[in-house]
C-alpha cells in the first residue's frame, strides 16, 4: 500500500504541474487546449535533444527546454488561439486539435517513435517505509512542490497575483480597473506552456518520452480540471493527485479479495473519473463562484 501511495505521489506531481498551468489558462480564457500533451512532450524532447545530442550540461538543457516550450506556447497562442477565441470560445477547441496533429507529426519526424529518456540508467532506488523510490524521483516531487509553493505565493501575495485573480474572476471588470487583460492572457498561456514543458522534462527524467503519451496526458489534465472545478487551480492540483491515487489503487489492489483490474485499464481510470464527475458533479469538487453584476 505504501508503494501505491508513493507511486501516486510521483504520478500526481507530474499531473499537477500540467493541470495547474492549464487550470489557470482555462480560468482566464475559458478555452480548451487539446494540444497540451504535445506541448508537454516538446519540453521533454527538446531537453533530451539538448542534453543527449548537443551534450549541454543538464541544468542548461532544462533551461533551454523550458525556453523552447515558452517560445512554442507563444507561437501557438498567437496563431492558434488569439485569432479565434474572441470570435467564439469553442473555436480553439478545433484549432488546437489541428495543432495537436501538426505537433504530433513534427515530434514523429524529428524524434521518431522510439522511447527517449533524458537520464537513462538513473533508476537506483532505496526503501522508505517499505516503498521503493529513487533519489531522482524525490527531487522531482520536491521540485513540483516548490513550484506549487512559488505559484501560491505569486498568486496570493503579490500585486501581479491579484491582477491574475481579478482577470480570472471578471475579465472586463479587471480591464476597467486598468489591468491589461490581453497581455495577461498571453503571459498566462506562455506560463502554462512552461509548466507543460516542465511536466515533459519530469516525464523524460522519471520515465521515457514517446509520442503516444500526448493524448492521455491531455485528457488526464482535463480530468483534473473538471473534477477540481473548471478554472480552480488548487482544485485541479488536488484532483491531479487524487486521480493518480485512484489510478494506482484501481490496478494495484485486489478487489473484494477476488481479482485485479488489468494494468491496461489504468489510463481508463482518469477517463471514467471525467465521466463520473461530469455526470454527477458537473461543476467539480471545488467549483468557484463567479461574480456577476
Amino acid at each position, binding site marked *: 500500500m505504501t508503494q501505491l501511495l508513493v507511486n501516486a505521489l510521483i504520478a500526481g506531481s507530474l499531473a499537477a504541474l500540467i493541470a495547474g498551468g492549464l487550470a489557470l489558462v482555462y480560468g482566464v480564457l475559458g478555452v*480548451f487546449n487539446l494540444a497540451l500533451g504535445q506541448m508537454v512532450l516538446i519540453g521533454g524532447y527538446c531537453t533530451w535533444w539538448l542534453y543527449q545530442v548537443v551534450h549541454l550540461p543538464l541544468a542548461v538543457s532544462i533551461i533551454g527546454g523550458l525556453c523552447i516550450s515558452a517560445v512554442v506556447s507563444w507561437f501557438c497562442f498567437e496563431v*492558434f488561439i488569439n*485569432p*479565434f477565441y474572441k*470570435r*467564439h470560445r*469553442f*473555436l480553439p*477547441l*478545433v*484549432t488546437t*486539435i*489541428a*495543432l*495537436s*496533429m*501538426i505537433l*504530433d*507529426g*513534427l*515530434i*514523429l*519526424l524529428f524524434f*521518431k517513435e522510439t522511447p527517449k529518456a533524458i537520464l537513462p540508467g538513473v533508476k537506483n532506488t532505496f526503501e522508505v517505509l517499505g516503498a521503493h523510490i529513487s533519489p531522482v524521483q524525490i527531487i522531482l516531487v520536491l521540485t513540483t512542490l516548490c513550484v506549487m509553493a512559488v505559484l501560491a505565493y505569486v498568486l496570493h501575495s503579490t500585486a501581479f497575483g491579484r491582477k491574475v485573480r481579478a482577470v480570472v474572476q471578471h475579465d472586463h471588470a479587471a480591464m476597467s480597473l486598468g489591468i491589461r487583460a490581453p497581455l495577461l492572457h498571453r503571459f498566462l498561456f506562455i506560463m502554462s506552456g512552461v509548466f507543460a514543458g516542465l511536466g515533459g522534462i519530469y516525464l523524460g527524467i522519471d520515465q521515457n518520452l514517446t509520442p503516444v503519451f500526448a*493524448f*492521455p496526458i491531455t*485528457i488526464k489534465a*482535463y*480530468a483534473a480540471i*473538471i473534477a477540481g472545478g473548471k478554472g480552480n487551480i488548487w482544485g485541479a492540483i488536488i484532483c491531479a493527485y487524487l486521480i493518480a491515487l485512484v489510478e494506482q489503487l484501481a490496478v494495484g489492489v485486489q478487489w473484494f479479495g477476488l481479482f485485479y483490474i*488489468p494494468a*491496461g*485499464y489504468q*489510463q*481508463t481510470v482518469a*477517463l*471514467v473519473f*471525467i*465521466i463520473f464527475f*461530469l*455526470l454527477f458533479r*458537473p461543476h467539480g469538487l471545488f467549483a468557484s463562484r463567479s461574480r456577476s453584476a
Partner: protein
Amino acid sequence: MDYALHTLIVANFFIPVVLGYNLLFGRGKVFHFGAVGTWAAVAYAITITLVSTGSGFLALGAGLAMAIVASAVLAWLSFRLEPDGFGVMTIAVHLVVLAVILNWNSLTRGALGIPGVPQLSFMKSIEVFALVTTMVSLLWIGLFAWIQRGAFGRKIDALAEHEWHAKSLGISRIRVHFWAFILLGISTVASVFFQPQYLRILHPNDFQFPSFVFLMMIIVAGKPGSLWGGVLSTFLLVFLREGLRFVPLAPSVLGPVRLILFGLILFIAVYVRRDTLFPKQRSI
C-alpha cells in the same frame, strides 16, 4: 482502375457517417467528439457477430442495437452537460471504448484486430463492393437531403441558432437532438457494415483519434451543415489521403507528413470558416 474503385469504396464508407455527423455537429452545433468511439463499438459488434455466426442479418441487428444504445446514452449525456464538458466527455468515452477494445483480448483480439472477416455471399469482387457501397451512399444522400430540407432540418437549425427562442416556438431540444444522435448511430452502421468485409480485417488503429480528426476535417472543409459540401470534401480528402500512398517517401516520414498536412488543412479550413463554424447568437 482497381485503385479508382478502391478510392470510391473508401469514400463511400465515409459518406453515411459524414452526413450523420454533419447533421449533429455541422448543423446542430452539438459538441460530439466521440463519433469514432461509437463507430468502433458498432464495427466490433457487427464483426464479432459476423465472424461468430456468419449471418449478415444478425450482424446488422447487433450493429443497429449497439448504435441505438450508444447513441441514446450519448444523447442523454448531452442533455445533462454544458457543451464543452460534453465535448471532453465524448473524447473520454471514445478513449474508454478503445481501451476496452485493446484490453479485452478474448473478445476483440486486442491490438491484433480481427482477421479473416467473412464476406457476404454476393460481395465477392471489388466491382460489387463499389456498386453496393455507392448505392448505400446515394440512398443516404437522398435521405439526408430530405431530412435537412424538411421540418427536422429547420428545427435543428433553430436550436443551433438560439435554443431558448426555438423552445418558445415549441421545438423540443431533447426530441430533436435525440433523433439526430440516433440518425448518426444508424449512419455509422451503414458506414461500417461492409468495411471489415472489404478489408477482410477489423483493426483498432482505424479508430484512433486521427480518424476523428479526419472526420471533423471533412465537415469543416466542406462547410459545416452543407450536405453537398460534405460529400465533395469526403471525396477530395479521401482521394488525397489514399493518393499520398504513392508519394515516394519512407513510411516513417510519410506518416508524420500526412499528420502535418491534415493538421494544416484542418487549421486552414477553420480559419476560412471562423465566422460560420460557431456563429454568434443573434440578439435583439
